[in-house]
């Protein structure tokens, strides 16, 4: 359909989608940076978080490979998005992750051990420590996209109570095809809710490439169906992602309503440890994507600008290794819950008709240690 130009046709709406990048894959700035980013420590903090996350991520994969962890979803190559979220949100905002934003969770107080417990098949991995921002965050969400519309209720509650809090909900490119996601995007603007929808577009949903996921040229334009701003950002550029998210969060906090951000990244790892991506995607594509690595480019910039030394790098790697080691140990040392736990938080108090089931489980004794 070409734009018609006769008196029968009248233009009633028009939309544009922009893509933002501040730091190119070689670690060179592409434009003048926002003020916050000009402080070297801001970028160093993002860098440290990304590196700690990568050290964790690699360790988690190796735990799985050696039978010490269940299926695990790696975030290799996507660390900038999580780090940007972690830095952009305020403490009392609410974060609703999909499952590849560990960096954001760590920034908000989720111990690495909890992530391991979760993928190790232990519900206590979703408890999160009291007193941290994570304590009012949502746990990882496995049924793809279904957590996204919870943001509508959470943000509505904030608005109703006059609280200046914001919800950031993240999900993948695959999730952007789910009715739950689409219904939420369609309606958030009706109430001008303080929500940022973050689509973590890592190009693949297991074996389905992005272009087979939807006919839309960008995922950012899904925002148009809800009448809200939609934009793309280079999700491997921590500066741009942090900046774009901060602006969207600020709009939400100021009562200007919801936004949708498509952060473009690449899933360098298999979908999960249960997947073998060589079945469906060419190795060259993966190799090429390594050139866009968010950690590489941040480090290149920091080093070139003299804000990061080899000694800094050594120290960071050593600290991260120690941290991860301690968390892994804490995970491995965690005794299983007592059997009754499978009933103890089912309801606030167990209905009397279920008490015999709890007793039966207790009587059967604890499970063997084969997890």
């Amino acid at each position, binding site marked *: 359909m070409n734009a018609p130009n006769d008196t029968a046709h009248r233009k009633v709406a028009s939309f544009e989608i922009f893509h933002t990048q501040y730091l190119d894959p070689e670690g060179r700035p592409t434009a003048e940076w926002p003020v916050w980013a000009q402080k070297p420590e801001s970028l160093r903090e993002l860098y440290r978080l990304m590196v700690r996350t990568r050290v964790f991520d690699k360790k988690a994969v190796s735990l799985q490979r050696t039978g010490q962890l269940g299926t695990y979803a790696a975030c290799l190559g996507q660390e900038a998005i999580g780090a940007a979220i972690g830095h952009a949100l305020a403490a009392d905002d609410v974060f609703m992750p999909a499952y590849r934003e560990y960096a954001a969770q760590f920034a908000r107080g989720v111990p690495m051990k909890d992530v391991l417990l979760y993928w190790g098949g232990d519900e206590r991995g979703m*408890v999160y420590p009291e007193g941290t921002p994570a304590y009012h965050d949502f746990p990882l969400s496995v049924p793809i996209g279904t957590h996204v519309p919870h943001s509508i209720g959470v943000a509505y509650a904030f608005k109703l109570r006059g609280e200046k809090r914001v919800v950031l909900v993240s999900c993948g490119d695959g999730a952007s095809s789910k009715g739950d996601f689409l219904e939420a995007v369609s*309606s958030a603007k009706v109430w001008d809710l303080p929500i940022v929808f973050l689509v973590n577009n890592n190009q693949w949903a297991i074996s389905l490439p992005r272009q087979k996921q939807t006919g839309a040229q960008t995922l950012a334009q899904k925002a148009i169906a809800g009448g809200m701003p939609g934009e793309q950002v280079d999700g491997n550029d921590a500066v741009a992602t942090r900046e774009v998210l901060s602006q969207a969060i600020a709009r939400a906090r100021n009562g200007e309503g919801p936004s949708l951000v498509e952060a473009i990244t690449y899933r360098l790892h298999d979908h999960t440890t249960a997947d073998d991506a060589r079945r469906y995607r060419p190795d060259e594509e993966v190799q090429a994507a390594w050139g866009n690595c968010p950690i590489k480019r941040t480090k290149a910039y920091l080093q070139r600008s003299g804000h990061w030394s080899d000694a800094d790098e050594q120290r960071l790697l050593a600290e991260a290794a120690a941290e991860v080691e301690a968390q892994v140990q804490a995970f491995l040392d965690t005794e299983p819950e007592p059997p009754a736990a499978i009933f103890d938080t089912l309801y606030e108090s167990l209905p009397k008709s279920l008490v015999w089931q709890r007793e039966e489980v207790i009587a059967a004794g604890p499970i063997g240690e084969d997890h």
Partner: protein
Amino acid sequence: MAESGKTATKNLALIEAINLALHSEMGRDEDVVVLGEDIGKNGGVFRATVGLLDAYGEGRVIDTPLAETLVAAMAIGLSTQGLRPVAEIQFSGFLYPCVDQVVNHATRYRNRTRGRMSCPLVIRAPNGGGIHAPEHHSESLETTFAHMPGLRVVCPSSPARAYGLLLAAIRDPDPVIFLEPTRCYRLFKQSVEDNGEALPLDTCFVEREGSDITLVSWGAMMHDTRRAADLLAEEGIAAEVIDVATLKPLDLETILTSVAKTGRCVIAQESARAGGWGSEIAAGLAEHGLLSLFAPVMRVSGYDTIMPLARMEKLFIPGVERILKEVRKVFEIAPKN
């Protein structure tokens, strides 16, 4: 609260009792919000939410877009923030798009976070047929939900019980599916005291005592069951009548106690027979009540066919005649001594 002497008693239809409970609880607890399609200015297609918008304002009375998955998910989100959402789904046939949200999230946030989060929400919907409504407006959904762990499923059968059970559902700290008997919405009135008193959510109600047979039902079918008991009484058969009311968690005890006395049981449900809640109750009897039974446990039920459109719906919905027919079978096998 319980100073019932001071509270107003009104003669109400079931739908009015629902409305009263909502009004009353929204007045009492400002965390209660209602949401759903057409519940604001329009007052709900059955008028359950009439007057709430004027009394409590747009913030707490939320007209939603036409998206049932969203309604359920929004209720979940609201409930995690300490609010007490009461969502209305216009007809139970449109509850199916809520199933995923209910079973995969509403029932699980508490458990998966070991108590850090919770979902104190209610989803209300009219349930069942008998009002000559269009296609998809006459479905019976109770068993679909009652099979789900972590849920409460309530089916009130009278105005007073609707009032007390709805208060209980709203106050309950966990998710409740509240299925109202559509064809009883305006069928009869009853005196309802607006005393703010909740009824228990884990107890069957023995409505009428009797020693010859136990009749068990819930929701709209209670109406037919009551009439069946009246007719049986005329024949000298004393039926004990039990309103299950809360299907999940099921108070099997009360039913077992009754059957231990009567030795006979007929269960009446409107929903399709196979895998209906009547089967759960009969299975409970087959396990725990076998030795007290003089006769087979008979289930009166809708058929295992699609709920017909209005012209034939009467063929599907079991009425008094079909209840009596099964009762007679029971007494044929195990006559009154």
